[in-house]
């Protein structure tokens, strides 16, 4: 049976997929900004152009997801397990905090709940979980 795997080193593959993921994430942030601010700033709320911007954002988002899974595949097993556990933790933390946050406007503690704040919680939970789990296993 022939070996169809890449012959570059795992570290080189990981570096390459990290760069690709960074570029895909940057493109997604850019296309999200265009979709959000483009209608008022560039094309005077033209519905057809807005629709194209949404489709472009969706396509770039799918490409970012693809890059993320490729990056995950290029990690070694301890790195991959750390990230998967961090995702599980992030899901739990986000669920608990989102329920609380969603109840705040009804309780008139805040005026309205903003989705961007949930994204912030997801991002911070993921980053802190990865760092904590990695340090717990690899601290010398």
């Amino acid at each position, binding site marked *: 049976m022939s070996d169809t795997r890449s012959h570059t*080193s*795992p570290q080189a593959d990981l570096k390459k997929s990290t760069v690709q993921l960074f570029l895909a994430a940057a493109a997604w942030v850019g296309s999200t900004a265009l979709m959000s601010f483009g209608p008022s700033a560039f094309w005077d709320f033209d519905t057809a152009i807005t629709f194209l911007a949404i489709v472009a954002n969706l396509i770039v988002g799918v490409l970012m997801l693809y890059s993320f899974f490729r990056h995950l595949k290029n990690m*070694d*097993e301890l790195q991959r397990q750390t990230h998967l556990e961090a995702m599980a933790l992030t899901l739990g933390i986000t669920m608990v905090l989102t329920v609380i946050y969603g109840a705040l406007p009804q309780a008139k503690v805040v005026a309205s709940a903003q989705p961007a704040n949930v994204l912030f919680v997801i991002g911070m939970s993921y980053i802190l979980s990865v760092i904590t789990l990695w340090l717990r*296993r*690899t601290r010398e």
Partner: protein
Amino acid sequence: MKNRLKALRADRDWTQADLADRLHVTRQTINAIEKGKYDPSLPLAFKIAAVFGMPIEEIFSPDTK
């Protein structure tokens, strides 16, 4: 799970980085396995056994605590 990775590596005068290179994993993974903070997957355990030229059960044993 207990393992003899550190002793076997020392017998061959390999650093953690040397073993990591042979197994295509990070040095941190070797360190975590040696310290018992991470149990390797079955494929990695077989790779470790192949690198040391020993049966898997002579390297890894169940933790009977």
